[in-house]
């Protein structure tokens, strides 16, 4: 019997298209024929046999119908599974071919994985901070209501009276809630800790569309004056204080020395209004008084009614504005401004830093894709024979294309998995690098969620398509000639293919040059920033900041008394040389902005007006203790107070206002109509607002007369500050055991923190640029090695004809360096083109700084040189005999 299985696909293809009815008909007729044959063999006449066969079969129509139905189902199944089956087949084939060339697959997956992984990691951060909708229900409907001055300046808070009135009258809102952050001290723990509580109306949770994870939310009854104080904890505090124990409900915690009952815990992802201010939520009482403290200002958040757009809400808000001055006489001509709650996500510099990083990793990804294309086309060249064979055996162009793309997609998806692993592994380090001031602004958690996974998947798929399509199209299109061997030759030596690979290398070098140049400039700028003299002696200096709770230190006298005692007590700590009190210490101090500085009797200088003016209120011994040199005049003494309006300014400001003339005794003011300040002394320049002082170069010091709740102490030590810090902490608690210490750190650390933002950018850009450089090196190496392999015959002939091996080496080197050089030139052009974008990121460095650009170009060329060296050396090892024999 003939066994049909060997050529099974041919038959399958032949029968597939036949209709179900025809197939059944054929099968049944065959049965009858066989049966007749059989009966004839038994001795029956043919006519009788035929009748007998029909009789035996019974109702042939019924059988045919039943079989047709079943067969039709099978047909459908087959065509459905056919596509799937062939994809599985392609996949198997792909995996098998990776096994055959593991180093190829590993290189490609690593390269693409790095590119996709870096993008995934940065996307995680950018998405959480800038893009992802806030973690509330329909966040796009949430709006903030803010007072706006007649000059269109929107103010953060509104008075309580106004806030309450808005909440009552804003008829375009579906829900509305009031909230205000208050700093409370939890005093029943091991140590007093400052926590950020939000005093909120009970309508907050319904407005945001959130509910507690356990327990209940604040009820309207909790807001009645005299009601038992209640607190809803954030998940983080619940874990920290109660180890996520449900028994926490009903327990009490002591806040500002008042017992609050814990009534609920919010879900882990809930933050309001942002991470850094979401420890707990307490009821904002109807009489606006918490523990005897009057809450004077408040923020208002609301949810727009379904059919009300932002424009209409603004119109209706303007109508509401007419009575503003009546409700609160402090807002005479102000208006009610409605703005989307998520309009402000971060400061412009954060936006810029994050998008710069995003751009950097996209460049890196493009380089990785370039390498991917190169690797795959080298592979493609190696398998022209295989593809040609398959196509001449009848595989369709589309079929082969699909198989090649399946391979590149599989590789890209493997890279995607690696990328997710890389992103997950680096996330902790990454978020650690982001300045805490940025992280704490976000209401979204920086974590790997659905959006990030989706991003990685889409990017992987896109990567697969990009790296696979070009080489695959090249392979399939090449099938112009009929003979397999002719095509083989045709493809392997096609100069066009090599041309594509070479231009890719030029593009890669150019891209990484741009990235390197930007990074080089940022590094250079950061180094200059670090070398900036702070203007005071930051060694052996400790900062302590204390926030005196209003309930314990109500009067100015009480606060003055406390700080006086604190000064004395701290001076008695061994290793302490001196202590001074100020309302701010470098790099953070109070400031005013939008000013116009003008000297008495002169016109205001137009150029060089500062945007910010840092102000510090200081004790007379401040300058000596911090080590700030007195250049002219005197420091403060007992005769100076708020009424004398005597100030000390820094040398830069003196020069700005009076040039080389003596500023002593002269007067200036910073706002029209304001009272004049009289200069009594000039001190050296101090970076009061951080090392990058571009926005606040002129410093003004005033005598410290009003001791407010939040003050800082600077402690000069003779010993290592780290040693002195514990006794200092103990000394503060000796004075008041319930006094939380907001900050205790060395001045050196404080100054270093002031450059956290630039440091974050520099670190990540350096990593991205480093990886990009490595990828380019791999790319250059790959292309040159392949070129040498391809030219083996030519090189062999040259050697046989007497060429020096060193000449061959030079030839390959020159080839590689030429490619790199072209790329470097284009990249430099790109870097200069981007200088406008990058300028604001730079400190004291021009975006076209020749030194930086030259160094970067040098690094690029040196890297390329190393990458070219190995293929070049291989060129010299070509044995002419082997080549000629193969000919």
């Amino acid at each position, binding site marked *: 019997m003939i066994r049909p299985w060997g050529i099974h696909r041919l038959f399958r293809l032949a029968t597939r298209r036949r209709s179900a009815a025809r197939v059944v008909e*054929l099968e049944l007729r065959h049965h009858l*024929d066989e049966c007749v044959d059989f009966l004839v063999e038994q001795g029956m006449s043919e006519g009788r046999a035929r009748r007998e066969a029909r009789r035996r079969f019974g109702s042939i129509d019924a059988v045919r119908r039943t*079989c047709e139905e079943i067969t039709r189902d099978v047909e459908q199944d087959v065509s459905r599974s056919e596509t799937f089956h062939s994809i599985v087949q392609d996949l198997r084939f792909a995996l098998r071919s990776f096994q055959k060339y593991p180093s190829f697959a590993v290189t490609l997956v690593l390269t693409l994985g790095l590119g996709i992984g870096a993008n995934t990691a940065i996307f995680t951060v950018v998405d959480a901070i800038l893009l992802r909708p806030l973690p509330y229900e329909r966040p796009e409907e949430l709006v903030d209501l803010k007072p706006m001055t007649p000059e269109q300046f929107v103010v953060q808070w509104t008075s309580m009276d106004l806030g309450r009135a808005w909440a009552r009258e804003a008829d375009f809102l579906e829900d509305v809630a009031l909230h205000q952050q208050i700093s409370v001290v939890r005093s029943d723990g091991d140590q007093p800790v400052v926590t950020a509580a939000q005093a909120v109306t009970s309508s907050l949770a319904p407005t945001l569309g959130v509910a507690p994870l356990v327990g209940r939310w604040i009820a309207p009854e909790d807001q009645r004056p005299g009601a038992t104080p209640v607190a809803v904890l954030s998940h983080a505090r619940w874990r920290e204080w109660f180890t996520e124990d449900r028994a926490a409900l009903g327990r009490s915690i002591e806040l500002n020395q008042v017992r609050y009952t814990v009534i609920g815990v919010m879900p882990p992802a809930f933050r309001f209004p942002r991470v850094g201010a979401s420890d707990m939520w307490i009821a904002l009482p109807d009489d606006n008084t918490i523990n005897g403290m009057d809450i004077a200002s408040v923020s208002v958040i609301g949810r727009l009614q379904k059919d009300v757009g932002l424009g209409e809400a603004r119109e209706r808000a303007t109508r509401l504005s007419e009575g503003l001055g009546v409700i609160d006489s402090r807002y005479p001509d102000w208006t009610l401004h409605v703005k989307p709650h998520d309009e402000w996500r971060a400061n412009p510099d954060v936006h810029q830093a994050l998008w710069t990083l995003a751009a950097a990793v996209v460049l890196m990804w493009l380089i990785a894709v370039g390498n991917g294309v190169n690797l795959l086309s080298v592979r493609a060249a190696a398998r022209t024979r295989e593809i040609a064979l398959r196509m001449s055996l009848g595989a369709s162009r589309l079929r082969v294309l699909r198989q090649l793309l399946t391979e590149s997609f599989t590789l890209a998806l493997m890279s995607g998995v690696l990328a997710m692993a890389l992103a997950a592994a680096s996330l902790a380090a990454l978020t650690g690098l982001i300045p805490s001031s940025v992280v704490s602004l976000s209401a979204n958690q920086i974590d790997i969620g659905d959006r990030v996974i989706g991003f990685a998947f889409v990017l992987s798929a896109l990567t697969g398509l990009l790296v696979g399509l070009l080489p695959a199209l090249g392979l399939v299109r090449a099938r112009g000639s009929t003979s397999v061997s002719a095509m083989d030759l045709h493809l392997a030596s096609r100069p066009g293919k090599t041309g594509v690979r070479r231009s890719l290398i030029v593009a890669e070098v150019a891209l990484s040059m741009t990235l390197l140049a930007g990074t080089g400039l940022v590094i250079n700028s950061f180094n200059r920033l670090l070398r900036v003299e702070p203007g005071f002696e930051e060694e052996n200096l400790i900062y302590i900041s204390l926030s005196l709770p209003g309930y314990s230190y109500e009067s100015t006298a009480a606060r003055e008394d406390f700080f006086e005692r604190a000064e004395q007590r701290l001076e008695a700590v061994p290793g302490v040389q001196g202590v001074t009190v100020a309302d701010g210490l470098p790099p953070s101090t109070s400031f005013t902005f939008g000013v116009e500085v003008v000297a008495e009797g002169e016109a205001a200088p137009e150029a060089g007006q500062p945007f910010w003016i840092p102000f510090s209120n200081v004790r007379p011994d401040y300058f000596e203790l911090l080590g700030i040199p007195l250049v002219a005049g005197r420091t403060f003494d007992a005769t100076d107070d708020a009424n004398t309006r005597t100030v000390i300014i820094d040398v830069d400001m003196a020069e700005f206002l009076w040039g080389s003339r003596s500023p002593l005794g002269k007067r200036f003011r910073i706002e029209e109509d304001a009272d004049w300040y009289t200069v009594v002394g000039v001190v050296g320049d101090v970076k009061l607002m951080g090392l990058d002082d571009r926005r606040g170069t002129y410093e003004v010091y005033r005598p410290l007369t009003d001791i407010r709740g939040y003050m800082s102490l600077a402690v000069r030590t003779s010993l290592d500050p780290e040693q002195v810090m514990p006794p200092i902490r103990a000394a503060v608690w000796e004075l008041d055991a319930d006094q939380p210490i907001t900050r205790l750190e060395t001045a050196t650390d404080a100054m270093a923190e002031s450059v956290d933002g630039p440091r974050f950018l520099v670190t990540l850009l350096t990593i991205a640029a480093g990886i990009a450089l490595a990828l380019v090196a791999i790319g250059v190496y790959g292309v040159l090695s392949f070129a040498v392999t391809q030219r083996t015959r030519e090189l062999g002939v040259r050697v046989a004809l007497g060429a020096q091996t060193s000449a061959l080496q030079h030839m390959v080197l020159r080839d590689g360096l030429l490619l790199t050089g072209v790329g470097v030139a284009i990249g430099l052009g790109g870097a200069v083109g981007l200088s406008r974008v990058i300028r604001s990121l730079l400190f004291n460095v021009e975006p076209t700084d020749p030194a930086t650009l030259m160094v970067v170009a040098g690094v690029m060329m040196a890297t390329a040189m190393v990458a070219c060296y190995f293929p070049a050396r291989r060129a010299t090892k070509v044995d002419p005999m082997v080549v000629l024999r193969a000919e």
Partner: protein
Amino acid sequence: MPSETIELVQGTLEFLILKTLSRGDPMHGFHLLRWIHDTTEGALSIEEGSLYPALHRMERRKWIEGQWGVSEKGRRAKYYRLTNAGRKQLISQQKHWDNYVTAVGKIVATAEGMA
């Protein structure tokens, strides 16, 4: 040739087809029919009217697969062979069958003993 032919219980037909095809060679419908008839010396007779629906049902369940080939007599015929799923099915049916036979055997033996 025995005088009585046995009526097939539902499901037994499928078992017999699986068992027959498990011998290895692919077979077409008539061939299957003759083989079962001859092997049981005519004791089991399968009707065409139930054989073909059964074959097609089993193909649908992927227990067997049919392919077109050319028969010894030069005719185009649809040949069936066992798939892996069919082999598994055969093993499990074989167990059922053995259990069934043992159980029936016991009852028959007991009943005989009582008589």
